[in-house]
């Protein structure tokens, strides 16, 4: 592997900083986030490495990394970071940015699940788990995944067969239509919180 670097080396990091309000260059690659990451053994790029790649302008590699999708959003990394970097937020930012730039998710199951989940919320205002699971399995082309659990859940009354929608669906429609990828941030981003 060879990285070709030029004077624009901080471009991607600045983009992430302005989108997330976090300071990417505060990271000194101590590895504490990677050390405690619950999905660490399932990812190729550790969070430490992913941030390093951001620092070195490797946008394509970062947006195509599986790591942000496998992130369980448990925030253990953010909680323990010695430099107060919200690592989980960086993962989230990369994921949203990839979606905004129409980069195909390298972990199709996670993308399919998110899609199915949000479809369900969008049309009902609430999660309709039975429908969502079927929708996920169809999107994911694994129609029989966890099929054994379904009947038991139904039997135990844990899956409703019909959606229970909210009254004011307009509200939800509006939220889905109007929400942007990123929250607005003032020009001077990246101010450290103390």
């Amino acid at each position: 592997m060879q990285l070709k670097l030029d004077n624009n080396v901080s471009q991607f990091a600045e983009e992430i900083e302005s989108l997330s309000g976090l300071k990417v260059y505060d990271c000194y690659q101590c590895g504490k986030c990677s050390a405690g990451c619950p999905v660490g053994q399932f990812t190729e790029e550790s969070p430490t490495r992913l941030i390093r790649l951001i620092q070195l302008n490797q946008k394509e590699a970062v947006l195509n990394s599986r790591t942000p999708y496998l992130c369980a959003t448990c925030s253990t990394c953010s909680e323990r970071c010695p430099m107060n970097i919200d690592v989980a937020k960086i993962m989230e930012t990369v994921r949203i940015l990839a979606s905004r730039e129409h980069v195909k998710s390298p972990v199709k199951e996670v993308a399919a699940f998110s899609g199915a989940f949000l479809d369900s919320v969008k049309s009902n205002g609430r999660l309709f788990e039975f429908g969502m699971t079927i929708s996920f399995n169809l999107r994911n082309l694994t129609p029989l995944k966890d099929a054994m659990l379904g009947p038991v859940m139904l039997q135990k009354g844990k899956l409703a067969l019909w959606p229970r929608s909210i009254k004011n669906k307009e509200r939800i429609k509006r939220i889905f239509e109007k929400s942007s990828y990123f929250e607005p941030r003032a020009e001077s981003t990246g101010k450290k919180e103390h």
Partner: protein
Amino acid sequence: MAYGYYPGCSLHSTAKEYGMSLMAVCRKLSIELNEVEDWNCCGATPAHTTKEELGIALAYSNLLNASRQGLEEVLAPCAACYNRLKTAKYALNHSELLQKRMDEITGGKVEHEVKVFNILEFFRDIYGQDNLKAAILKPLAGLNVACYYGCLLVRPSKVVNFDDPEDPQSMDELIRLLGGTSVNWSCKTECCGGSHAIPETDIVLELGKRIFSSAQSAGAKMIAVACPLCQANLDMRQHQINEKYKTDFKMPVVYITQLMGLALGISPVELGLNSHFVSTGELVKQF
């Protein structure tokens, strides 16, 4: 006593017994819960990892409804919902720009502060430990419980600002108050992979295994939770974990409200203790 109540999607479906047991406990303690009218899904993980504003707006919309209804204190028993509502509040407190955007997106503005409580805070700070203690009929004597907080109750600590993120104590205190024994174990706040429960099964099996072995070696007979995601994950997947890792875990994963219910003398069926994947028979026998 009447408080706002945000059940979230799970308490009506996969976490039915959480809702049932909470209702039973509240009836017993004469706590009146007013459901937030026409509440919607908090967005959970998929919303905020897809669009930042969507994650905030879905949660904010509920705060909006609660404030219109005049609710000042809202109980969010589901740890995921609690976390999302707290995150929305935190983000809005720290950004006027975001507040403006939320007003645009939802077409409304929260009129007064809506405080959000998780289940542990609710019984500790709002209802009060002394009141609870007075109502106990059947102390959970001899019950070794591993209190499992997971991620969302305690992290990010600056957002939820609830308990020590490394070694929280509030659920342990509650178990002791109910007469049970809380074991000292290492995985209290380890992630169970709940947000990957459906899409990435391998991950959750591995994480679940770690949690069960830790609880078992600490001498726990069951795991108590306050999060529907953790419960579903650990309860539903235990069988698969045993298959994959050739283990023999038979550890009921119960909601803290179910244990409270038992201590308050409510029948196991009323608490939904019959709807678990891993049998709660041994536990129920004692009551």
